[in-house]
């Protein structure tokens, strides 16, 4: 998904953050396809700026997450708002990963030849990530993206249980047999 280089400000709304990462056409498509998610993102905008990331850093991590768990014919990390999960994680249970991220922004910039990762084309982004996929930084962002997809929504990601829906995980926590296709009588 090509991203437009739209400057972020601290006061940018969550919706703007979400939508400015997409081309105008994609943003319209996103709003049309997942109106509830986008509306909720908009409603959530008053939550304010990021806790750990600068807006520029958030945009870079969000772009990485969007390649790690891409939007295909189904929503991806961006729609699941994984960036908010990671931002929160880095000041809570994953605070010990802060140095990995702090170093990682330098490594990422170097791998991008000094450019912003988010400003690269999709193909370029994939090339950069493939080149750094063995690094501690990439592994951290990969694992945090996956956790943001599949942790309970209360932790900031997995928005509207997008991740759980994709792996058909029912979080009812109370089931009666039969459970699956093979134990049906």
């Amino acid at each position, binding site marked *: 998904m090509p991203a437009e280089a739209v400057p972020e400000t601290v006061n940018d709304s969550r919706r703007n953050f979400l939508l400015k990462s997409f081309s105008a056409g994609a943003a319209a498509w996103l709003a049309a396809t997942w109106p509830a998610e986008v509306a909720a993102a908009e409603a959530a905008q008053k939550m304010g700026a990021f806790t750990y990331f600068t807006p520029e850093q958030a945009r870079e991590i969000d772009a990485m997450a969007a390649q790690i768990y891409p939007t295909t014919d189904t929503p991806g990390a961006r729609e699941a708002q994984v960036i908010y999960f990671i931002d929160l994680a880095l000041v809570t249970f994953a605070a010990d990963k802060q140095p990995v991220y702090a170093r990682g922004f330098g490594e990422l910039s170097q791998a991008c030849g000094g450019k912003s990762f988010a400003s690269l084309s999709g193909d370029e982004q994939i090339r950069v990530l493939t080149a750094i996929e063995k690094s501690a930084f990439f592994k951290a962002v990969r694992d945090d993206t996956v956790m943001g997809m*599949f*942790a*309970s929504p209360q932790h900031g990601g997995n928005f509207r249980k997008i991740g759980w829906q*994709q792996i058909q995980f029912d979080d009812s*926590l*109370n089931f009666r047999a039969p*459970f*699956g296709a*093979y134990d049906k009588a």
Partner: protein
Amino acid sequence: MKKYQPSETVDFVVIGSGAGGAVMAKQLASNGFSVVVLEQGPWGAYGHEQDYNKDELINRFPSEEDMLMTDPKRQPNTFRRTASEKAVTGHHSYGCVVGGGTVTYGASSWRHLPWEFQEASLFGTMAGTGVADWPITYDEIEPFYTQAEWEIGNSGPNIKTPLLAAIAQGYPMEPLPLKSSGALFEVAAKKLNLTVVPNVAAIITKPWNGRAACINCGMCSGYGCQVKARSSSAVALLPYAVATGNCEIRAHSYVREISTDAAGKATGVVYFDKKNNNQEVFQKAKVVVLSANGTETPRLLLLSKSARFPHGLANSSGVVGKYLMTGNGGGASGLFSDPLNEYKGCVTGAAILDYVPNDGKGRGWYGGGRMTARGYTSPIAYGLSGVHDAPSWGAGYKKALMEQANRKLYIANFISQMPLETNMVDLDPDVKDAWGLPAMRITTQSHPNDMKGVEFFIEKSVEVLKAAGAHTVWADAPRDATGGAHARGTCRMGNDPRSSVVNKYHRAHDVPNLFIVDGSNMVTGGRNHPTMTISALAFRAAEHLVKAAKSGNVTI
């Protein structure tokens, strides 16, 4: 809860509140003795189990107070394959909360079969190994298996087969649901002529002693049970011990030494009291019961060395910590066309029992094992590492993740392991824990025979999955054990003080008022899954100890 002063000489101090310690505490307190239970871990949600969380992220990154397992930061351990290697950071962990490992375990509760106590006599031993008969027979322990099953609350199938120990009374209640994995096991079993049984579990399937039946939430192994359906020590035993008015449980109490006097008798224990700034407390006791698990029990004995016991307490034989069996596994995964939804219900499913018997001639290796069905359960674990044959990120990862979700069956095998003198728990010479004590060091390398067993079970798992209709099968690479919560053998039971640590009533040969009651006593490891046997051993040990103590003499 009754409170005792440390200066008060209580009848019994019990170190550890898990499968062994909780039975001892309950039985001793019920017979009128004063008991203090010391648990190194926190309270967990003891008495307010509805507060256990089912949140996978919180469970992965618990706060110190919410931890249910050991904290590798505060309690590091080291690992090496052989004594000639320098140990590296280890990943051994175990339940560490009031109720011990039973608070979070998968609750598989298989009895040993009668012959599993006499494998050396019946099947011979193997040169260079510690395979030996137990000093007790199945008939001696059988009544205590029954007592444990009914007092703790077990569910299981009432099926007669020589592959299961015969149970005269049957299990107290119906087994857990078979699940799709069990149904697929049955498909394979029909083709391969195998015997499938539902899981035998310390999980209740009907209301029992004021506790609710399992609701199949699926957040089972690794989580506390909110409805008290898992018959953990913390809900099935300890509340009854406390209700006698004779038993005090002290959480956050990390024992560093069992103290002895000039005559070589135990006088009590020294522990760090976390809620009191880790101050040292000396609890006086007439008798010490050590039930700290198959790895912490030998470590504590080795930490308790003195001029009189220079090689560690109760270690004149030199075998404290030796003959460690952590358990071997390995298996295979199969992908099916339709959803199994294995994340629903108890993590451990049905079992195939045909390879439990010792058939050295037929299979070319000594021992046996139990095949069990397990699915991929929780979403984060699945996302991080549950996808086969796919990249770890990107569109290909996402596609495979969505396609494989809920369609996999994993067969986990629980395989016998030779007790070897060279496999051991001892004290690391360099690494210290947060209290400044030497960290646990684990040395373990399976006998080549056992690796044949692992390979055998991986092959059999592939065969079963194919017969069940899996369209894709992935075999695990054979891997040797490195540690784990099923540690056994490190304070073996025996009649000869020169080659064992405790006698058949669990009294330390060297210390008349020290009893060791946990997985460390197991001479041979059975087919892994030790908890039911630990419970039965403890009920048996308690009966003898109560009789002896009532007659004023614990030196049975």
